[in-house]
């Protein structure tokens, strides 16, 4: 099934041209795109049968894999390569992980083709730095309205072409974008409780 999705993704990548890259992991196909072409890619995907937008998720990759290396290693069936027992701060994981893209923010779009059996899912992903705007897809998928507003409110990613980009969850005068990694978790200091 993912071979068929891969073929669809490569067709869309060909339609987009430069900057489009297809990858596959764990049965999921991801198509990385330039941020100004996402609406065209969504229109192309809709033409290819992926006419339903499931999810729009924004991620902040600031400080990815640099902290929190402590932890019991994951299931050995997922590790390829040998365990490097001498790696500092490691409980066995050999490689240090690099973020999958070169910019700070990623927005993942989950598209669904419901008419094929089995149904096919494709992820489109764009990358943006702080302040760079992503093209809005509200014209292609109207249900992206609130979801783009959520990404703007909580992550601070502006969407070019959104008809009414304003905060959705936080009050109007709120300062900052809480889901960013450099925004503190907040709360009150509690005595004797330094671990979160």
């Amino acid at each position, binding site marked *: 099934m993912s071979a068929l999705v891969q073929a669809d993704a490569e067709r869309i990548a060909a339609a987009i041209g430069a900057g489009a890259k297809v990858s596959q992991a764990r049965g999921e196909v991801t198509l990385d795109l330039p941020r100004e072409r996402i609406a065209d890619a969504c229109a192309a995907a809709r033409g290819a049968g992926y006419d339903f937008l499931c999810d729009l998720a924004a991620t902040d990759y600031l400080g990815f894999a640099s902290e929190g290396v402590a932890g*019991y290693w994951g299931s050995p069936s997922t590790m390829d390569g040998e365990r490097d027992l001498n790696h500092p701060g490691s409980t066995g994981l050999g490689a240090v992980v690099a973020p999958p893209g070169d910019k700070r923010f990623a927005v*993942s779009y989950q598209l669904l083709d419901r008419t094929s059996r089995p149904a096919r899912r494709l992820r489109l992903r764009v990358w943006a730095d702080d302040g760079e705007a992503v093209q809005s897809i509200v014209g292609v998928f109207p249900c992206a309205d609130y979801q783009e507003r959520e990404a703007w409110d909580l992550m601070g990613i502006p969407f070019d072409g959104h008809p009414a980009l304003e905060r959705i969850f936080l009050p109007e005068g709120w300062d900052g974008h809480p889901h960013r990694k450099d925004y503190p978790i907040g709360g009150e200091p509690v005595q004797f409780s330094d671990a979160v």
Partner: protein
Amino acid sequence: MASTLPEQRAGRHVPAEVLSPIPSVLIPPADDPDTMLLNLGPNHPSTHGVLRLVATLNGETVVGLHNELGYVHTGIEKNMEQKSYWKAITYAPRADYNSFFSNELVYCMAVEKLLELEVPRRAEWIRALFNELQRLHNHLIFLGTGSIDLGGIALLFYCFRERDRVLDLFELAGGVRMHARYAQVGGVAEDVPAAFDREARAVVKELRKRVDEYEDLIGQQPIFRDRTKGIGIITPDFARQMGLTGPNARASGVDWDLRAHAPYGAYREINVQPIVLQNGDVYDRYMIRVFEMRQSLDIIEQLLDGLPSGPWIADDRKVVLPPRHELHTSMESLIHHFKLVTEGYRVPAGEAYAYVEGPRGELGCNLVSDGSAKPWRVHFRSASLVMLQSVAALCNGVLIADLIAILASLDPNMGDCDR
């Protein structure tokens, strides 16, 4: 019924169209002296939580509408990033609090996808069973509160009485009524007790009678039919464009059910026939949930009949805690237990999207991991956030009483929406 002017009733029985330029806002006519601004919420008796609707009315007709969300924005997703994968499961059910098990389940499924961890068969069947119990729980609350929204208080008491019976089963297996944190990465936290089969069958038998009663109680009630038939019509195209899934879409003729068409877990082995209704109005959205309750009872019996024996959680000691009795005999188990509890297991880096057919529609979890023991980013695909965009389009030109009925029929949950 005939007291409203014909032009005021214009929007009532017309299928909804996607609004433009802003899909989620019904823009009122500018400088019309006959209009009035009415604010519903964030505290109002229709207990969908803290939703605020800002409506512009001309007499009793809605001519402008937009939503104000965020009154229960909790920062669940950010809190989950601070905890290890195991401890973060506790935050998940508080998002959509009417389908708490489905939230836990979808998060655990996303983690298992990244770990490529195989869940044993018995655990999958138990999870599916509780997913269906969750659907029952949610639809009972929907029916109870939906009925009180329309003014019929009786169903509230009946449905909550049944809901308590369903929660008895959750308490039997998970120890607590709500937010039992029963789903665990690799399976379920504990096996169902020996009495569960007997108790569950008793609950199913009792609920079958009740669901038939409810279908008669509301389905044949003339006031209910008048208030809901032909109101708030969703077409399949509207559902597709506005991202509606679950009962809201299936009541409009969209034949799409994740349990049947993209099955996961135990649904791969059992046969679920999606229930599809054709009219797409408020009446259909109420009745489809009644039918789905019946279907859930059938599925629960099917799952109880075929429940396989075996482990209820995966055997991988690097992820799953070993059974307590092994801690006395095996040194490795002791070390595994210590490491898992203090540090937590590491999940390989990557991004995964897991989905379940929640009671509200597709409930998804987009999980990004950086290879450490804490999730890097957890994002829940919220059916409620997406469906609330449709309220403005559905309420274009309807009466204010219809607005309440339409909102109730969509079944949003503000915890799911705001997270």
